[in-house]
């Protein structure tokens, strides 16, 4: 194992803490650093508004970004290893779209906005997560079905993209027959946002993603065997069918939870595993899984900060920011694939 890779744990943790604090301090409303610290330490300060902004809005938002980033990045990594395709990711394979469809069905058909859903008997956001999970799992099932039929990875990606279009067309139909305010709520949700999780919902969100991430750590050994391909892995005693299902379940939980609360976020799942691999210079999952988690959290927090337009109190949609970070990484990786070990 690469000893120098161990330096990335403290380094990334440090960057993570800096970005986390940055997310609390930096925002559309400027609040001095010392006031933020005082608020966090529980000291009373004069401005109740500041206190509300930091504790009710920025703190849950930063935590959400942290967990959502890790979740999406790990989903991407798991899919890339499972399908042995460096360009796989929750959004490319249509899994985010599946979750999207579940949410669309719920929002457009039953309720106008998240706040209305929350009033439901089976606590609303659980219904939302379940709908997203169901949608994601259906698409995952379809992808598994095709992955057995289509051995060519590029073809599988194209099938994933086609399924994504198909799902989008269903969503368009749902949109067409919905009232304007429901469509508006859905469109806003679709732009992506880390602020969708309130302080009360945060424990639920954090628990779901935390268990999903823990799950991923338990899969490290079979993931490494899968680097050799399924036949080799089977010969090493890995139960392929079970492993496949566990990986897809894990991906489903992580993608669905994140998508339900934050909207379909693009590129983090696709690009972060590459950043992690390029940094480590290794595709050994023992290192890769934790580093991908840390990287995902850092990138999401960074995106969260980049959403704030400097010098104004405007906020950009999250999905306007993530491609700016993610797309160049993917282009870089594709152009340099001959020189990148894990491609060969």
């Amino acid at each position, binding site marked *: 194992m690469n000893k120098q890779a161990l330096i990335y744990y403290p380094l990334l943790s440090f960057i993570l803490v800096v970005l986390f604090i940055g997310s609390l301090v930096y925002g559309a409303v400027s609040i001095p650093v010392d006031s933020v610290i005082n608020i966090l330490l529980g000291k009373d300060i004069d401005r109740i508004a500041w206190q509300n902004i930091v504790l009710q809005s920025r703190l849950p938002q930063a935590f959400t970004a942290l967990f959502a980033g890790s979740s999406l990045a790990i989903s991407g990594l798991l899919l890339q290893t499972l399908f042995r395709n460096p360009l796989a990711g929750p959004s490319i394979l249509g899994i985010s779209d599946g979750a999207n469809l579940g949410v669309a069905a719920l929002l457009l058909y039953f309720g106008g906005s998240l706040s209305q859903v929350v009033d439901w008997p089976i606590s609303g956001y659980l219904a939302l997560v379940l709908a997203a999970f169901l949608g994601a799992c259906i698409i995952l099932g379809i992808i598994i079905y095709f992955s057995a039929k289509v051995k060519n990875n590029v073809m599988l990606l194209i099938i994933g993209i086609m399924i994504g279009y198909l799902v989008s067309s269903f969503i368009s139909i749902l949109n067409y027959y919905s009232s304007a305010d429901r469509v508006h709520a859905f469109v806003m949700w679709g732009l992506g946002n880390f602020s969708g999780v309130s302080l009360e919902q945060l424990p639920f969100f954090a628990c779901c993603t935390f268990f999903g991430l823990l799950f991923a750590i338990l899969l490290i050994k079979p993931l490494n065997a899968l680097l*050799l*391909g399924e*036949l080799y892995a*089977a010969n090493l*005693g890995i139960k392929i069918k079970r492993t496949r299902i566990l990986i897809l379940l894990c991906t489903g939980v992580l993608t669905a939870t994140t998508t339900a609360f934050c909207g379909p976020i693009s590129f983090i799942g696709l690009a972060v595993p590459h950043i992690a691999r390029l940094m480590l210079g290794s595709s050994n999952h023992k290192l890769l899984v934790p580093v991908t988690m840390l990287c995902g959290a850092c990138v999401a927090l960074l995106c969260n900060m980049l959403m704030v337009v400097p010098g104004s109190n405007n906020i950009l949609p999250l999905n306007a920011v993530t491609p700016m970070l993610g797309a160049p990484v993917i282009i870089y990786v594709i152009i340099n694939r001959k020189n990148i*070990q*894990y491609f060969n």
Partner: protein
Amino acid sequence: MTQVAAIETKDLSIGYVLKGGRHKVVHDALNLQLYAGEVTCLLGLNGAGKSTLLRTLCGFQPPLSGAIRLMGDPLEAYSQHRFALTVGVVLTEKTNAGGITVYELVSLGRHPYTGFFGQLKSSDKEIIMQSLESVGIVHKANNYVSELSDGERQKAMIAKALAQQCPIILLDEPTAFLDVTSRIETMVLLHKLAAEQQKTVLLSTHDLDLAIQMGDCLWLQEKGRAMACGTPEDLIMNGAFGTFFGKDGIVFDPSTGKLNVKAPVQPVGVEGDFQTSYWVGNALIRNGYRPSPVSADYININCKSSQCLDIVWPDGTKKQVASVAELIDEIKK
């Protein structure tokens, strides 16, 4: 032989189950044995069913009927874990292992032995190092798999199978895509492992020369006929080779162990220096002549040295030439 066969098949039928439960039999009535310490080469033309047989023995697809016994126990008695401890495979499947080091690759062979998180104990590490040493790539242990040549990659995969500590190693065309030297190296390595570590080695290959040279036992497979098994020499001399590989316009020459393009008919007498006459014979065969003992009935060539070749025509005319190229030109006139 009193020794228990490492692999034994009885009336084994291999193939695929089609939709509706019908069987597509690729080969049946296979009664085969593999023994420890031997390298067995599975030969056959494309489509003969080599891969299907290997896949069946590797446990990747179930037999249609018949029985397989591994180390004396029936295949059904093997859990996936026990199987992983018994049979190690080296496949042609493309891997995504470019981004891990050779050491990490070989350590994957320890998977059936390690715990839930795959943590390596010091005994595991020792076995990994021994495996790397056995195949001779210790110096590449910390290189990425992507930096290896095809031959080294094959060695690394063999080391992985060694780290698995299986008595049986099955290899699917391990010499395909390799250059001449790597092919020979790989075969020598497998032979050494069989002899020194008492491994049972079965490999499929298209490499007739190497199989004849290095195989302790050959299996000749062709659709619709019984598998021919035996030592290469026996199979050559009893004519089995000729019937398995001889096709229209292609002839197996039992005296050289080579496949030749159509039977050369016109005899030419060759005598003299051993090495020179061997290569003169090679050139003659290529040009449609059959090297034969010297006789007054046809053209004779006396190979004095590689630069001095005497041609004697049946009518008594003689000519000396200084190269094989000139020789062929003269004979063709």
